[in-house]
């Protein structure tokens, strides 16, 4: 392979990498959590694919190393700078996450409280959830005889309460 051709290609690759990183900042800024977490792991993680791309060139052309390293260093600097920016975005996202979570929890709590209140009201008025699913009347259904006895007891007690003698 022609040395000049390779050098041109590599320097062009570094420039492309530089431009790509510029664009990727904007993408990262908007893309959110997935890319954020990827970059947050550090430059090492970001460099790994670059090393993989460039390592075949190192083995064949020694001088390519400087140019490649230059491009990579430039990339690292950008990444490091962008990393700080991204960390800030990340912190903001974390905050938003937290607020969202809190909102979600309080909304859930409110919904549960409403449900519980509603259930208590329904249960108080004689309907409970059955084991088999669905609703059923609370307790045993009393026979007419028993209802009559219970009414009589209530009447007797009311008479006692109202008796002022």
């Amino acid at each position, binding site marked *: 392979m022609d040395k000049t051709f390779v050098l041109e290609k590599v320097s062009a690759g570094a420039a492309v990498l530089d431009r790509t990183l510029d664009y990727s900042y904007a993408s990262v800024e908007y893309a959110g959590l997935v890319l954020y977490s990827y970059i947050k792991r550090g430059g090492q993680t970001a460099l790994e694919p670059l090393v993989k791309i460039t390592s075949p060139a190192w083995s064949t052309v020694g001088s390519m190393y400087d140019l490649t390293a230059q491009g990579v260093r430039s990339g690292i600097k950008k990444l490091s700078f962008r990393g700080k920016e991204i960390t800030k975005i990340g912190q903001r996202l974390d905050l938003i996450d937290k607020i969202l979570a809190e909102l979600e929890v309080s909304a859930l709590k409110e919904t549960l409280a409403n449900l519980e209140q509603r259930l208590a009201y329904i249960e108080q008025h*004689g309907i409970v959830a059955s084991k088999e699913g669905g609703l059923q009347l609370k307790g045993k259904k009393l026979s007419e005889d*028993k209802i009559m006895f219970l009414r009589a*007891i209530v009447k007797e007690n009311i008479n006692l309460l109202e008796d002022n003698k």
Partner: protein
Amino acid sequence: MKKVINIGIDLGTSRSVISADNGVRTFLGSIVGYPKDAVSLKLFGRDIIFGEEALRNRVSLNIFRPFENGMLKISQTMDEKSKEYQKAVETAKLLLGRLIELALDEEAGNRDDFIVRGVIGAPAMASRKNKKALLEIAKDLLDDVMIVSEPFAVAYGLKLLTSALIVDIGAGTVDLCRMHGTMPADEDQVTSTKAGDYVDQVFYELLKKKYPDATLTVNMVRMIKEENSTISKHGEAIFIELPVKGKPVKYDVTEDLKEACSCIVPDIANGIQHLVASFDPEFQKDLKDNVILAGGGSQIVGLKKVIEEYMQANLGYGKVYKVEEPLYAGANGALFLCKDMPDEYWQQIKVRAKKA
């Protein structure tokens, strides 16, 4: 929403029993003791002692029994401001409060976390004043309360609301009540005060007369009676040890105990006959088929047979049954009533109680 705890209470002359739907079932001697002085107060570490503990330590306590003849110890003519009335009400309130505490012991949380509803059994022929006083006492301790005739509570618990004759033999009274599908009226009920306490007194006097050298108390003879009560002709001989000048001496009290226990039979037999004979003749047989013995006195060995023999001789026929849990039959029935009572009925009572 607060948890509702239903309780049934049988406030008896000798024992007060409670059954709750949280599984607690217990009883307490109907006795309240107050330490006599600072020494006994220090000894007990409390200013009120209840039940058996009070009875065991009665020497160092001022003892009060709030119930007599199955009722609160107040008379129809007693002034509500008198010391005697106030004391009876105070001790009954303490006792009831203690029973409720026992029922709530198993529950986690404060008293305010629960709605405690109770039905209290009162003797069949308790006066209105007595029932009202009981309601007054209970309404400060329970969120909702009702009073019901004791034998009716027993019948309700046994699901015998028709064609049955309940004989509830307590310490203070024997309550007889016929059930015929409606709420028992006064003419459906008979009460006799010849009950457990009366047996104790007769037994005590017989022993005092027969063994004048022996020293004994009513409490001692009560314990002997509770362990050995019988009127059976075929039972074993009963020997007890009584101190004579400090030395225990063994006595045979078989016949004395039988005689004492038998003294409640005539009133029970006459009560049964009266309730059967005054009932609709077409349904008398149904009543005679279902005579139910409840209460501590139903444990007298041979009583069932003696009553059946009496009914055979005087009513031509009779079948007598004993309840399985005589001590708890009243409280269990009251608990069933409490649980069955619909919320709207409790609400009605609450509204009237607030107005009263």
